[in-house]
């Protein structure tokens, strides 16, 4: 957990880490698994070299389930991103 001032000098208390070191995907086996339209656009970041070893785990959540910590989630520009899914809506 770390606190840092924002552009407006507000104090931010974060329960996560700001990721760095995004690069294009070059592994050919991995590119093969992606849709053609995604290959140029998907980036990758090595979490372990940034000190992240606990990626969290998805859990059975929802109606009648206990409250459990979420898995590690990605937020970009302070909005939740979408864990890759199919279909996209519904």
């Amino acid at each position, binding site marked *: 957990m770390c606190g840092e001032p924002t552009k407006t000098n507000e104090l931010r208390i974060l329960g996560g880490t700001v990721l760095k070191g995004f690069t294009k995907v070059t592994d050919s086996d991995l590119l093969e698994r992606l849709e053609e339209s995604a290959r140029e656009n998907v*980036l990758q970041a090595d979490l372990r070299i940034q000190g992240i070893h606990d990626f969290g785990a998805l859990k059975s959540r929802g109606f009648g389930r206990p409250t459990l910590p979420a898995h590690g989630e*990605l937020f970009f520009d302070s909005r939740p991103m979408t864990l*890759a899914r199919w279909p996209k809506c519904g």
Partner: protein
Amino acid sequence: MRVIGKHIQDFPRETGTDDGHGTNIGSLEGGFFYESDRPARWKSKENIWIHGYWAYDWANSYERIAELDVTRRFIRTAEPYGNYGFNKKQRFYFLNILEELDEPGEWYVDKKAGILYFWPPSPIESGEALFSLLEQPLVTLKDASHVTMRGIVFEGTRGNAFEINGGEGNRIAGCLVCNIGDWAVMISGGKNHGVQSCDIFDTGDGGVSLEGGDRQTLTPGGHYVENCHFARLGRWSKCYVPRRLHDWRWLARVEQSNS
């Protein structure tokens, strides 16, 4: 063409029972059949999850797939399986699949390699990518009194943002609490604690839970929520978590609702 949800096509005949309301539903342990060949494209079948409203539209859950048979188009989930049973035509979707990372804003972690894949919705250098880690509350106040937290951003965590137990007169004021894995604020016991003029966005479970007072003597707890803006709560637990509250004062307890 966008596909809107998938549907439970059927369940093994021998697992069907009457749900007590005249509908034949399949047992949770028995799994269900789906209607697409798309999962056959997925190279890894490990740690794929499904979200669905398995029997009724008011009870959702996320479940891990224990068995995915792409030939029979059959899914068996891991315990606790789902809710009530599998009802034909109920909707669900698959998540946590690398091959389906094909739109801006989607991401996936290969846990073995320790690599996160992400298609940023705008150039990566234009924004901040934050990965949540902490499973304990960002702030815990236990039997503490007269603490005010004002004008602070609390953001990006796996658990609750605030847990306040016991004590008196603590206040969260003018704060932004967002991108929280569970609840923004859990207040239990004590008296006169409150959340005032805060923005509370994008929580995984509910927004603010207040519990206090004494039912036997009808003594009010005095906890309050006032002048707050709530949006996009219940990202993960979509049913029966309080989603929108504005000015609620002098409550003994906020009952959970689906509204």
